[in-house]
């Protein structure tokens, strides 16, 4: 495998906007070919800034970017053909027809019109938009517009697909459909970099993940490793009777929080067991009726990392 170049190699990437905002503070990152890579981070972490630089929509302040083994500085135009971008914001002309948007995009990539038409049909069918091909983009629903962005990004068959929150505003069923689709094209060899605020999405789809906060990568690695390494478990405990403050005080040794009159939130650090915690709680006379898992496991990792970082 030594000969295959990395899909993406970023070193010391910095971005300072004209406004003075330091969006990226020296990010380094490598993504091998064929990877399904997740990008997590709270609003304003710098995810879109990074993706914009890689796709040629923003200039970098410092650092190097290599795409498919080619330096962005030496081959600014050539590297763009390796990349397909699904931007966070809709940026097509809403007055144009769905099919024209995709066919014209292929044209900008230098694909002759006859061939572009065939490819547009293929991707529009794949994304369930073929029936809508003659509609103006503004007449599509929000979820369809997202899929149009994906179709447009795939029409030149990029090696690397950058998706900036592709599932925002997409209903549950469609989102699952989109997951299957992304898995398929990843299996067919396309490297995928996915930004999302849905942590279960990363947990389900991605092999590796980077967590970003305030312009820096604060954790990176295999999704499974990251979860087990930083395995904070958060459980919700329903009590049989309304909680009395005096009893809660006795639980000081535990990382516990009263959510409402009959619910406690218990967070376990790596190494702590449910058994020990429950024993302590029973000791105070609080009766637990039910234990619930709160949210995705990655979500806990994420929330804890961000909390620690700030």
């Amino acid at each position, binding site marked *: 495998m030594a000969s295959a170049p990395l899909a993406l190699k970023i070193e010391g990437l910095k971005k300072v*906007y004209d406004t003075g905002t330091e969006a990226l503070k020296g990010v380094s990152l490598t993504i091998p070919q064929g990877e399904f890579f997740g990008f997590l981070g709270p609003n304003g972490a710098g995810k879109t*800034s990074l993706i*914009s630089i890689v*796709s*040629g*929509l*923003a*200039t970098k302040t410092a650092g190097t970017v290599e795409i498919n083994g080619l330096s962005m500085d030496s081959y600014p*135009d*050539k590297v*763009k*053909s390796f*990349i397909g*971008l699904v*931007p966070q*914001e809709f*940026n*097509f*002309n*809403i007055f144009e027809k769905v099919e*024209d948007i995709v066919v*014209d*995009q292929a*044209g*900008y*990539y*230098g*694909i*002759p*019109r006859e061939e572009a038409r065939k490819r547009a049909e293929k991707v529009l069918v794949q994304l369930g938009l073929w029936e809508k091909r003659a509609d103006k983009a503004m007449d599509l629903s929000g979820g369809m517009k997202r899929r149009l962005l994906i179709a*447009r990004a795939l029409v030149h068959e990029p090696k690397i697909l950058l998706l900036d929150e592709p599932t925002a505003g997409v209903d549950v069923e469609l989102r699952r459909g989109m997951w299957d689709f992304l898995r398929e094209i990843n299996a067919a060899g396309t490297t995928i970099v996915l930004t999302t605020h849905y942590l279960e999405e990363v947990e389900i789809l991605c092999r590796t993940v980077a967590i970003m906060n305030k312009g820096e990568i604060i954790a990176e690695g295999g999704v499974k490793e990251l979860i087990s390494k930083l395995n904070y478990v958060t459980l919700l405990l329903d009590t049989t009777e309304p909680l009395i403050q005096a009893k809660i005080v006795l639980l000081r040794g535990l990382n516990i929080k009263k959510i409402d009159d009959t619910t406690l939130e218990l967070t376990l650090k790596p190494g702590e067991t449910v058994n020990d915690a429950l024993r302590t709680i029973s000791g105070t006379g609080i009766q637990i009726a039910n234990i619930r898992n709160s949210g995705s496991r990655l979500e806990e990792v994420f929330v804890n990392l961000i909390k620690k970082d700030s």
Partner: protein
Amino acid sequence: MTRSPIFIGYYTMVRKDFIRIMRIWSQTLLPPIVTTALYFAIFGTFIGSQVRAVNGLSYISFIVPGIVMMSVITSAYMNTVSTFYFAKWQRTIDEQLVSPMPMWTIIAGFVTGGVMRGLLVGVLVVITSLFFTHLVLFNIAVVISAAVLTTLLFSFAGLVNGIFAKSFDAISIVPTFVLTPLTYLGGVFYSVNQLPPFFRTLSLANPILYMVNAFRYGFLGVTDVSVAVCFAVMGGLTVLFFLLTLFLFIRGAGLKK
């Protein structure tokens, strides 16, 4: 024949703009026809019949080339300033920016749109003028090259305006406060030789004067200034605005964040 990817990208932009210009013909092609028809009717026929001949020509024949040029200039300018500003504002320009199209091809795509609309309007307005007067063609090569140079120049100028524009209002400031006055004072309706010496000299600083006169020479064979000077001014300004556009694009043109 295999076409180069760069050419295909350029062709895609031009084709799209051509279809747009044709689709919204009532905004792009019809207004100059209506306006110039009014000019021909009022200044040419109604008032013109009472104005004595200029340079030995009937008044309406004298003003036709200038009026054609006026609509050519506005159309070319408005096309690039509006398509470019719209692309920037709606971020549709990202479709080109993420693609491997080199910057100069993107510029060429926008500029060709302006040239296309300018020339199209020019032809339509000339046809309109035929309803009001006979037109002679003194030198077709001069007519065509003057029209092409002028549309090129104002397409670049429109692009520069589009780069600096921060709002929709800003794209009509230059046409209203600069282009229109300069055109009216550029010898469309009179020969600058009829002016007192001071105003004649002042008029020579107006670049549009040279375009109007080159065009008029092409049609009628008369001009207030030497045709060579006209082409030197047009050529010089076109190169200047081309370089300015290139410089602004290389600096990012407010396109890249």
